[in-house]
């Protein structure tokens, strides 16, 4: 329990001193994967809150189509794709980070975005349509902060140079697209296989 609490507090250390913070995750055994997962859960919760509690003026979601599972997928799928693709790429590029390091770094990096989302929701309750820009600024800062953290995170845990990090990020994005493609291909093949087998079964049953 104490360990988790320390892990959660570590999110703030990472935000304040990203380079040292991420370095310590990899080489000093700082951070905690349970706490990191909690950060991710926090982001999911903020996504849900955003859908449900954004002020009426800015909330254009149809409540009838709201789906928590989809919100969860919206967070989990990109995060795990990112981690998996990044791990695949950096292993080949002599990165020092292990999968758990990548995962933790990613999870800690999304915290600013989650906080910005929360701030955005609270602000949206008090702003009028003309002041919409402020909401954009808030989430813009959140995204920029998260992107920066993600970048330094990859750099620190793999001990890359800036240019190598940029290159690896590019490859990671390509890798994500590739994995997605494979998954879809697999799904459609599997679907065809199921249709084929069920077709055979129907055929056989009709002839028996």
């Amino acid at each position, binding site marked *: 329990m104490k360990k988790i609490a320390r892990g959660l507090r570590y999110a703030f250390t990472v935000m304040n001193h990203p380079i040292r913070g991420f370095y310590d995750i990899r080489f000093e055994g700082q951070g905690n994967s349970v706490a990191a997962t909690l950060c991710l859960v926090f982001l999911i919760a903020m996504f849900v809150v955003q859908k449900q509690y954004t002020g009426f003026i800015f909330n254009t979601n149809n409540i009838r189509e709201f789906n928590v599972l989809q919100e969860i997928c919206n967070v989990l*799928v990109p995060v795990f794709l990112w981690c998996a693709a990044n791990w695949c790429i950096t292993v080949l590029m002599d990165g020092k980070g292990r999968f758990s390091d990548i995962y933790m770094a990613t999870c800690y990096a999304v915290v600013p975005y989650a906080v910005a989302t929360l701030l955005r929701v609270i602000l949206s309750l008090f702003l009028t349509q003309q002041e919409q820009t402020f909401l954009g600024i808030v989430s813009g800062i959140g995204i920029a902060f998260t992107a920066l953290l993600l970048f330094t995170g990859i750099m620190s845990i793999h001990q890359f140079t800036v240019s190598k990090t940029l290159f690896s990020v590019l490859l990671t994005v390509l890798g994500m697209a590739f994995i997605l493609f494979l*998954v879809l291909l697999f799904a459609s093949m599997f679907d065809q296989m199921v249709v084929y087998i069920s077709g055979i079964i129907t055929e056989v049953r009709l002839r028996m």
Partner: protein
Amino acid sequence: MKGKRWGILLTAIALCGACPAVQAASGEESLYTPVSSFASYTYNYWGDPVECPAPYTVTRTVTGVDIGVGELKKPNDMAVGPDGDIYLAVSGDAAGDNRIIRLDGQLNLLEEWTGYTADDGWTVPFQEPLGVFVDKDGDIYVADGASKNIYHMDGDCRLKRTVLPPDPDENAFIDEAFVERYRPSKLVVDVSGRIHVVAVNVNEGIVEFDPDGKFEGFLAAGKVNATPLEILWKKLSSQEQLDRMADFVPIEYNNIALDQDNFIFASAAAIDESVVLSEIRSGNGTEQGALVRRLNMLGNDILRRNGFGPPVGDYPVEETIDNIDATYQGISRVVDMACGDNGCYSLLDNNRNRIFTYNSEGYLLYAFSGPDETAGGFRTPCSIVQYGKYLYVLDSGLRSVTQFTRTGFGDAIADAIQYQDNGQYNAARTAWENVMAMDANYDLAYSGVGKTLYQYGEYEQAMRMFKLGNDRTWYSRAFKEYSKGVVSRWFAPAVVALAAILVVTRLLVAVICRRRKSRKPAGGA
């Protein structure tokens, strides 16, 4: 061991990825019941159809035989006179089929003309009357497609003048080929006497004639919508390829109408469906995907599109089970418009044979009628006109004219809009509440009541109403005023309270400090 764990993880990711697909397959069920083919409805904020009471009912339908003029072979157009009389332009292969028929508002035959009376007293037959218009003095204008002339006649069909097709010798920008393909089909004449003609085979825009009948030029030539990619592709193609490619052709207008303020409504049929669909999805209509434009004298589109979605008729939401009528694919095809009071206008769709009425802001008031002929619907509607509380629709498939009369529900909406435009806020509120009593799901009624409350400064109540009516713009306005009120109400008390808290804490600190001081020597002793 480790590898196995990652395998499980990857499977989980795959499953997550498949999750939305599973949802899509199960169908996003709407809680609204599917709207039947002959129901009245409106679209809510999210583009879902919401049923509403009938705004119009069919009160009379007549065919040519019913009114005693024989079958109407090719009914082309309909116009309404200043006194509410209906004029039909009918063509056909036989000589006697080409005629202008005048009916009264209850669709009883008044007169029938097979030609105009020339100065010398002879009746010259019409060749192919494709369009008819009646101006405020009761003068009849007929667009004759075969002779390419426009005949201006008085109320008894005595010729006043003939407007000839544009002369290529006098105008540099048209040629013989233009005159060859030019076939005037629909026309309106504005108060100044300018004649605006929509012609078949002409995509240069609306053909304009000045009050003297002289060709002036084209209005609102359709812009060619080419994406940068298409332009690049054309640049890279060889001449042979270009020859086989579809040309970028500006849109061709297919009908025209004049509204109360003398602006021209023009409809275009061949709009890129994907553009319209993307605008429906985004909810923001622009001129790009406009089935209907409202043109000023410069040819600029000034139609307001502030409704829940663009004013393009039905929103065919594919892939959902509650698609209101899956047998009719695609977007609406607007073939005619009718302009009513207070900037309201109705569009006639001959894809699903519905009529869509919008207010001046572009909110869909109601959609009604449909393809069900047995229930008073249409087969191939081609023309619509409005006179007061009557709507008339000409059907070229059924060869009939249908009279619609506005119901109490439609009247209540019309009244409410009228009062709102006149600034009679209390009356408007009563009228909107009347609408609300008949249809509790009518969003505009809530925002209508909200606007009255806003005018009287009851911002909190107004906010509630705008929320119910899903009107975010007005909600924001009311919210601004409301928060202003809250701040000015509580600013002084808040400052006083803050000051009081500061003073009290100061005093407390001072008291505690003094006590400690006085206690210290005592404790030390």
